[in-house]
C-alpha cells in the first residue's frame, strides 16, 4: 500500500517520527494513526514522549525525521502554532494553562472560534449566538456559577474543566488532551470521561492519561508508548495483558 493511500481518510497520521534533545531520543520512529470521529487513548510511563508527541503535532517542536499529516493532506511540520490551531487542532496542556488574570467568561471568548486577526479582534462584538454558545459551554463544563470569577481563583480540577471548555469553544476537528483528570475527584473524573466520549461522536480525540480506570471508562482504542515508540496497541484488555507493557509500565 502506498503512503498516500495510507494517509487518505485519516485525521492524524504520524509515520516514523523521531526527535532528539541534546542527543536524548524523546521520540523514536513513532507511528500513530487516528481516524475521523475516533478516540485514541495513549498510556505509558513518564518520559515516554507523550507530551513531546503533542508538541510536534501542534508545531511547538519540529521533528528531526518523519511525517506528520493532518486530515490526510496537510503537512504539519511546515506550519507554525497559530496556523495549526486554525486548521482545527485544539490542545489541552498537561499543566492546565488558562489566562489567570481574566474571567472564566473571557477565557471562553478568547477561545471561541472566530476570526483571529488583529483587526477582526479589535472590532469583534459578541453576537447573540456567540453568547448562547458560551453559556452552553459553561453549562457543559459546569462553570455557569463561576463565569465572572477570575480563572486564577479556580481549583486545579476546575482549571482543567475550563480548559476543556476552551477546547470546545475552539470547535476543533482534532483534540489533543494531555492528562485531563489530574487533580480531579473521582466523580469529576467519571464526568470527564462521559464528556470526552460525547465529544468523540463527532470529532477525533487523542487523550493521554495515567488513570487506568479513566482509560477503561473511555472504552477507546489504546496505544502504549515507551521510550518514544509504540510498545503495544489494541483494546485496554489486550494492551494491559501484553507482557512487555506489564514489564515496562504497569508492573512498575
Amino acid at each position: 500500500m502506498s503512503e498516500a493511500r495510507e494517509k487518505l481518510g485519516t485525521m492524524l497520521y504520524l509515520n516514523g517520527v523521531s526527535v532528539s534533545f541534546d542527543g536524548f531520543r524523546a521520540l523514536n520512529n513513532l507511528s500513530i494513526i487516528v481516524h475521523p470521529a475516533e478516540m485514541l487513548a495513549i498510556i505509558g510511563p513518564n518520559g515516554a514522549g507523550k507530551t513531546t508527541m503533542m508538541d510536534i503535532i501542534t508545531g511547538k517542536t519540529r521533528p528531526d525525521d518523519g511525517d506528520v499529516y493532518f486530515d490526510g493532506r496537510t503537512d504539519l511540520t511546515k506550519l507554525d502554532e497559530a496556523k495549526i490551531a486554525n486548521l482545527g487542532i485544539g490542545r489541552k496542556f498537561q499543566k492546565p494553562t488558562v489566562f489567570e488574570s481574566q474571567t472564566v467568561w473571557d477565557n471562553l471568548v478568547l477561545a471561541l472560534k472566530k476570526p483571529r486577526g488583529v483587526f477582526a479582534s479589535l472590532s469583534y462584538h459578541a453576537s447573540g449566538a456567540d453568547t448562547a454558545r458560551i453559556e452552553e459551554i459553561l453549562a457543559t463544563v459546569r462553570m455557569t456559577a463561576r463565569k465572572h470569577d477570575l480563572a486564577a481563583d479556580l481549583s486545579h480540577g476546575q482549571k482543567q474543566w475550563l480548559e476543556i471548555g476552551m477546547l470546545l469553544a475552539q470547535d476543533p476537528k482534532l483534540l489533543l488532551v494531555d492528562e485531563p483528570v489530574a487533580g480531579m475527584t473521582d466523580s469529576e473524573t467519571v464526568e470527564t470521561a462521559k464528556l470526552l466520549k460525547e465529544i468523540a461522536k463527532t470529532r477525533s480525540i487523542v487523550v493521554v492519561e495515567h488513570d487506568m480506570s479513566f482509560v477503561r471508562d473511555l472504552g477507546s482504542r489504546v496505544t502504549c508508548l515507551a521510550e518514544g515508540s509504540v510498545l503495544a496497541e489494541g483494546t485496554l484488555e489486550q494492551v494491559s495483558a501484553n507482557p512487555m507493557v506489564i514489564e515496562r509500565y504497569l508492573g512498575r
Partner: protein
Amino acid sequence: MITQMLFRALDRKTAWVALLILIAAAAVPLANLYLPASNPLHVPDYAVPLFGKYLTYAMLALALDLVWGYCGILSLGHGAFFALGGYAMGMYLMREIGPRGVYANPILPDFMVFLNYKALPWYWNGFDNFWFAALMVVLVPAALAFAFGWFAFRSRVTGVYLSIITQALTYALLLAFFRNDMGFGGNNGLTDFKDILGANIQAGTTRAALFAASGIALALALLVCSMIVNSKLGKVMVAVRDAESRTRFLGYRVENVKLFAFVVSAVIAGIAGALYVPQVGIINPSEFEPANSIEIVIWTAVGGRGTLIGPIIGGILVNFGKSIFTGWLPDYWLFALGGLFVFVTLFLPKGIVGTVTGLWVSTRRRPVVAAAEVLQPEPEAAE
C-alpha cells in the same frame, strides 16, 4: 461599529478622567489669560508650558503602558519615539523661522549655515508645511516601530532581551543625532523657534493653545487606548502578556498583536513629543538618552501599570515632584527617583491606581488586570 467601540471604551472611570482632562485643558489656559494675577486661581505664565509638558509626559507614559502593562512588552526605548515626534515638529519650527535667523538665510536654518551646508538636505523638504510635519510626527515613529517590531516579534525576542534591544535602539539614535552631519543640529539640536502656524510661540495665547492641544491629545489618546483594551483585542493582548505561547496555540498570531500595540503606542509617543517641543522650546539628542526611557517606565510603574489612568497620574505626579525636588536638591533627583522606584516595586507593586482600586473593589472582585509582578513575569506555563 466605531460608535459601538467608542461606547464600549467609555466605561465610567475612563469617561470621568477624559472629561477631567478636557476641563483642565480649558480651565488652565482660561485661568492664565483671563484671571487677574491677584486672583488665587490665577495660573502664572511660567506654569502653563510647565503643566503642558506634564501632560505630554502623561501621554508618553500612557503609550508605554499600552505595550508594557497590557501586552507585556517592556520597552526601554520609548523615549526614542517621543524624540522622533519632537524632531519632526522641531524641523517645522526651524523652517518657520525663515529669514529671521541670526544668519538671515531664508531657507537654511542657522546651524546649517554655521556648518557650511550649501543646500537643504533632502529630508528637510516639506517641513515648511505644518501639515506635512504633522504627518511625519505620526509616520516616522510608526515606521520605526513597525520595522523594529516586525523583526523583533517575528523572531520571538521577548523579555529582558527585547528590553535590551529597545534600549540599544534609543542609544543608537542618540549617537546618530549627536553627529553634526546627520543634519539635525547635532549636540545643540533644534531651538530658537519663533512661531508656530504664524503665531508667536512665546505669546501667552499660543502657550495657552498648546496647553489645550496637549490636554485634548491626551484625552483622545486615552479614548483610543481604552477602545483597544476594552475590545477583544485587549483581552488577546493581556493573554499574550500572561501566557504568550498558550495564546499561539489558540490560533492568534502573537507577533501581529504585539506589532499593532507597539505601532499604536509609538504613534501616541510621537504625538506627545511633537506637543512637548514647542512648549519647552528645544529638542536635542539628550531626549534619546536611555535614562529618559527608563524614567518613563518608573512613571508608569508608580501610577499603576495595566490601568490606563495609572500612567497618566504617574506621568504628572512624578514630574511635578521632579520639578519641585530639583529646585530644592538638584543633585539628588536620580537618587530620589531610584528610591521611589524601589519603594513602589516593594510596597505598591500595582502602583497608585492599582492599589487604590484594589482596596476599592476588594469585596467584589472584578477582572481588573492584575498588574502585579512588575519585575518577575510569570513563568510561561504551556508544556
